[in-house]
């Protein structure tokens, strides 16, 4: 509200100066001042919000991470790096990092291969191209909650009437309790396939955009040189997709690191989450916001995870490319 009135108040003032006839020098000074003012009218509200809702919590959390902050956000007991030592030596925290590694090892290559494969197929489909693109893209409209619901209660329902178990039954196989057994860990199949369905269309669109940026003259030159089929793919298409591929890989990795929704919805029942398959954010959720409300350890965990993800992003170096003139 305050922002809106401030900007409206400033508006007539500049119109006035715009019309006024004054000596050149004074006018330029006035104009310069106005530029600074106008910069902050445009950028100020956003930056103020960003500082208050992003920077303040992060700094506050950094401060909390050095205190014993159980059930309080204004702690007094300084513990130094105690919370960090506790977190790094907590087997459950290290397990959560391991869970992420396992999850990423499944989901990153499968999503990459499937979305690239679909993009190549759709890109060469002259007939009904838009239709196929739409169908593969449509799951992006669904939330992880919806996918978890369908996967848990119908597709991979552990009882006989689940669709996958029904199909197994046609081949004379026994129904499988997909989510409630640990040996073998079938729950990975459920978790990975749900995310695969949700996100493949998104990355397919990115690959399609990459494919459509490849100049047709390259293909024409390859055809003149007698290249066909796999050779074209190997020597023209794949090298031209390097930029898109590395962007997709980074996005996949960062998104896998933040996995929470499908784990939470698929695996927890009646408010209970099993002790296995806890990715970092699920672990953090139960540490900081569970019964303990342990903001000291929770903050230390958040700082460690933030550092890990920032290192990955920095190593990739893509996020730091400003200007975007590629």
């Amino acid at each position, binding site marked *: 509200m305050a922002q809106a009135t401030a*900007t409206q108040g400033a*508006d007539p003032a500049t119109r006035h100066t*715009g*019309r006024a006839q004054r000596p050149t020098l004074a006018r330029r000074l006035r104009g310069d001042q106005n530029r*600074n003012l106008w910069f902050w*009218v*445009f*950028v100020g*509200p956003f*930056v103020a*919000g*960003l*500082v208050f809702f*992003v*920077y*303040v*919590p*992060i700094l*506050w*959390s950094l401060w909390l991470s050095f205190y014993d902050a159980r059930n309080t*956000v204004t702690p007094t007991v300084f513990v130094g790096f105690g919370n960090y030592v506790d977190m790094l030596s907590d087997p459950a925290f290290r397990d959560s990092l391991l869970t992420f590694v396992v999850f990423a090892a499944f989901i990153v290559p499968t999503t990459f291969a499937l979305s690239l494969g*679909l993009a190549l197929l759709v890109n060469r*489909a002259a007939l009904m191209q838009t239709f196929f693109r739409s169908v*593969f*893209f*449509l799951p992006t*409209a*669904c*939330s*992880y*909650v*919806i*996918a978890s619901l*369908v996967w848990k*209660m*119908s*597709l991979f329902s552990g009882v006989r*009437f689940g*669709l996958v178990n029904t199909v197994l039954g046609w081949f004379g196989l026994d129904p499988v309790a997909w989510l409630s057994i640990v040996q073998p860990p079938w729950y990975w199949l459920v978790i990975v396939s749900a995310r695969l369905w949700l996100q493949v269309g*998104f990355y397919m*669109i*990115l690959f399609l955009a990459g494919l459509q940026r490849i100049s047709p003259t390259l293909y024409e030159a390859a055809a003149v040189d007698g290249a066909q089929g796999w050779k074209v793919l190997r020597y023209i298409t794949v090298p031209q997709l390097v930029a*898109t591929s590395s962007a997709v890989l980074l996005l996949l990795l*960062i998104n896998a690191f*933040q996995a*929470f*929704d499908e784990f939470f*919805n698929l695996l927890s*029942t*009646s408010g209970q989450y099993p002790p296995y398959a806890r990715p970092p*954010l699920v672990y*953090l*959720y139960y540490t900081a*916001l569970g019964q303990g409300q342990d903001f000291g350890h929770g*903050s230390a965990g*958040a700082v460690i*995870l*933030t550092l890990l*993800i920032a290192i990955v992003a920095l190593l990739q170096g893509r*996020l730091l490319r400003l200007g975007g003139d590629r």
Partner: protein
Amino acid sequence: MSIQRSPLEKAGSGLRYLVLVAGALLFLVPFYLVLRNGLMREQDITAAQWSWLPPQVQWGNMGELFSDPAVPMARSLLNSAVISVVQTGAVLVLSGLAGYGLARIPYRHSGAVLWTIVATLLIPASVTFVPSFVLVSSLGWVSTLRGLIIPGLFQAFATFLFRQYFLGFPKEIEEAARLDGLGYWGTFWRVVVPNSFGFVAAIATITFIGSWNAFLWPLVIGQDQSSWTVQIALSTFLTQQTSNLHELFVAAAIAIAPLVLMFVVLQRWIVEGVERSGISE
């Protein structure tokens, strides 16, 4: 290029369509399951014998869901609608203005401001849910719409995309507007915005989808039933080991209907939004 298609190529093309059709059917199965189960009676869903179509279509499931006191469906749909619409509108205005200011208004410290914004891109919002919760609870905003909406309004990535877009906006159009006596404010609203419909629509659709489907933040903040979004209502319903499958699935159908409709109508803008958000990141 007119090259005769060999029989091998024709066979390859046929195989390609076979794979595409099979894949498309597989991708549609979950949607089919939502509709099938949502329109069935409970005993038909759990029947030992699989039936592809509801033996008896139950349109009444919807009425039953909305009158079920255990699931605040109407309220949570309303909450989701308010949150998504307000967030989308506010993100467009805040990030649009900031992006334009960064791209077009010369200012000595403009670079430093840009870095302040871009630096936050290194830290995904979901990883900082603990500190954000600490702040929001200190403000007393837990279980309020304010707490659900306001912390999500400052999207560094949207601002960055707007800046990139405005850098490429044709300068001549703006200069003509300046000659007509419009200041920065007037140029932005009367000339730049009306000529940026496609880009604004792309960012709007992407923001709306993200907002409607958000889960972790609404889970953390929406502790009272009155502040549940539709995702939280569904999740609670789902994780409470319900034996009420027909209501659960009709609720799922209602929750995805607005977005599926949006995808069908606005697909062009959504695809553009995805392309832009994926490539620049």
